[in-house]
């Protein structure tokens, strides 16, 4: 062969370091992977998978508690097992080919096949059929889940959910069938066994409304009226989360769903927004709330929001750097389990941290970034701790 100098293949190996003992490692690995070990490994892998699918986790899509999530899970489960079968078959074939047809010393050139029409048609047609089957089922499920079933007609509960950076607002246009309007935030209360029809809106960026155990997510888009429905089969607390990236505190935009019995729900609606009993300390807090604290600028505490005020808050939020933003409606705040968008338990200590500097609980939130009292050098409130204590007293009497 006529080869140019740098090209000479037969020149001695020039690698100056010792050969890496890869082959030995491979050999001992191969031995290890036989017989009992392999079985043990298989069992380990399977049990890992079972442990890893955790239906009890708060937001697990496996722990369904309502028909919407159940149908979605059923579809997924069937699909998953089909995929597992395809996986085993195809990876098995790959592995088999790799082992069975590995090169052996002195092996002649293998037969030079170029293709096989029958085979190629087969593996085009079989997946096509499989996929069309699954596809048609998906489409029927899609339409089935689009609206609550006809049987639920007349017995549904309407809720309008509005996404804000970074909390959820819930409005019941007709909470009890008699036109009672309730506006609340971050904790959604619904009766068990009744279909809830949710109207999804946003007044800033795109968010997404998701309660994994009850229903898959639908986005809250500022220009759309999206809809979603769900029904809870059992009472209890469920966890929801914003699932579309919406800025700094997206991770901490959560909410709770309290599924109550119909009686509990009715009692809650009937008692909602009654004037709270205020102790002397709480009255002092109320004064701070309406005065020095400037809390009323952003928060409503007595019933539903007035649309004009809401619009004004939003306007202020978009147009100025400080001062005002839409804040959660805090009527009956003390009856909630958590605050700051489902993030943290509602109690004295946590409220103190929040009111002293909300950044310590939820970095980036618009209370800290906008409220005048936090525009200080270190971000801590300009109120005194006495005023804060009074505020806490007041907030905890809101029930």
């Amino acid at each position: 062969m006529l080869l140019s100098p740098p090209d000479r293949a037969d020149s001695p190996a020039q690698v100056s370091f010792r050969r890496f003992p890869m082959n030995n490692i491979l050999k001992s690995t191969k031995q290890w992977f036989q017989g009992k070990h392999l079985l043990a490994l298989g069992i380990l892998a399977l049990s890992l998978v079972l442990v890893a699918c955790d239906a009890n986790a708060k937001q697990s899509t496996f722990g369904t508690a309502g028909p919407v999530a159940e149908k979605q899970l059923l579809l997924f489960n069937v699909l998953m097992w089909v995929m597992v079968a395809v996986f085993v078959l195809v990876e098995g074939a790959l592995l088999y080919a790799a082992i069975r047809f590995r090169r052996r010393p002195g092996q002649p050139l293998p037969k030079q096949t170029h293709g096989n029409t029958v085979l190629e048609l087969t593996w085009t047609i079989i997946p096509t059929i499989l996929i069309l089957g699954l596809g048609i089922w998906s489409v029927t499920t899609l339409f089935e889940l689009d609206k609550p079933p006809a049987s639920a007609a007349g017995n549904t509960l309407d809720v309008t959910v509005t996404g804000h950076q970074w909390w959820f607002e819930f409005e019941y246009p007709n909470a009890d069938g008699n036109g009672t309007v309730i506006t609340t935030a971050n904790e959604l209360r619904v009766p068990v066994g009744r279909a809830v029809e949710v109207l999804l809106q946003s007044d800033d960026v795109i968010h997404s409304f998701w309660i994994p155990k009850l229903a898959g997510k639908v986005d809250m888009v500022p220009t759309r009226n999206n809809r979603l429905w769900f029904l809870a089969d059992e009472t209890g607390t469920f966890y929801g989360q914003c699932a579309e990236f919406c800025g700094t505190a997206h991770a901490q935009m959560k909410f709770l769903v309290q599924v109550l019995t119909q009686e509990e729900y009715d009692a809650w609606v009937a008692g909602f927004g009654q004037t709270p009993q205020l102790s002397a300390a709480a009255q002092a807090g109320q004064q701070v709330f309406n005065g020095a604290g400037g809390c009323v600028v952003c928060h409503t505490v007595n019933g539903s929001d007035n649309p004009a005020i809401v619009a004004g808050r939003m306007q202020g939020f978009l147009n100025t750097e400080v001062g005002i933003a839409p804040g959660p409606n805090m009527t009956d705040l003390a009856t909630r389990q958590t605050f700051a968008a489902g993030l943290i338990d509602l109690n004295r200590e946590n409220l103190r941290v929040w009111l002293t500097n909300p950044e310590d609980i939820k970095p980036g939130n618009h209370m800290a970034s906008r409220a005048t009292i936090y525009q200080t050098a270190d971000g801590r409130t300009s109120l005194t701790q006495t005023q804060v204590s009074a505020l806490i007293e007041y907030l905890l009497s809101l029930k």
Partner: protein
Amino acid sequence: MAYASGQLPTTDVDHTYTTTGLNHRKLLMWTFLSSDCLFFGALIATYMVYRGQSLVGPYPIDIIDIPLTTISTFVLLCSSFAMVQALAATNRNDQRGIQLWLLATILMGATFIGFQIYEFNAFRMEGLKIDTNLFGTTFFTLTGFHGAHVTLGLVWLTILLIMGRKGKLGPAQSLDVEIAGLYWHFVDIVWIVIFTLLYLIGGFDAGPTAGLLIEPSLLSLPT
């Protein structure tokens, strides 16, 4: 295949050989134009999606002047004819023809741009700026990018004209003129689409009557 055993098969081709016989630069221009189709396609799609979505006036029906733009469209179309003549003159090596027709193309293209400047200015006087409403936004963006394409074409043709005046254009440079022509014709065709959609069809659009993308209940959105 006949080649000496023990040799790598090779062949002799002259230096203008291409697989398809097409010139590279011409193929490049076609590829570029297909890309540009999607560029304008996306801009036009944006315009169409936002038709009738403007929340405040002026609306197309208030200010679009179809007769005026028909004239400028006609002029632009004629420039394509002149471009064809310029290429023909190049192929014949008709030096006077080259200069004449290139100059005619440029003058007509420039007239079109002149009309566009006039139109933009008139719209501005009537209160339509790029940030006035969605009509202004999409209209100025789409026609503006088209105008930029025309302007680029004018610069290109001017350079060709200068070469022509120096006597450097002839049958040997036929491809240079042809490629410029391809571009010029494309820009014309795009304008026909724009003219049809924005003026002949969309020119009568009024305010948000026919239903908004945005649900009306959400229109109380803060500004």
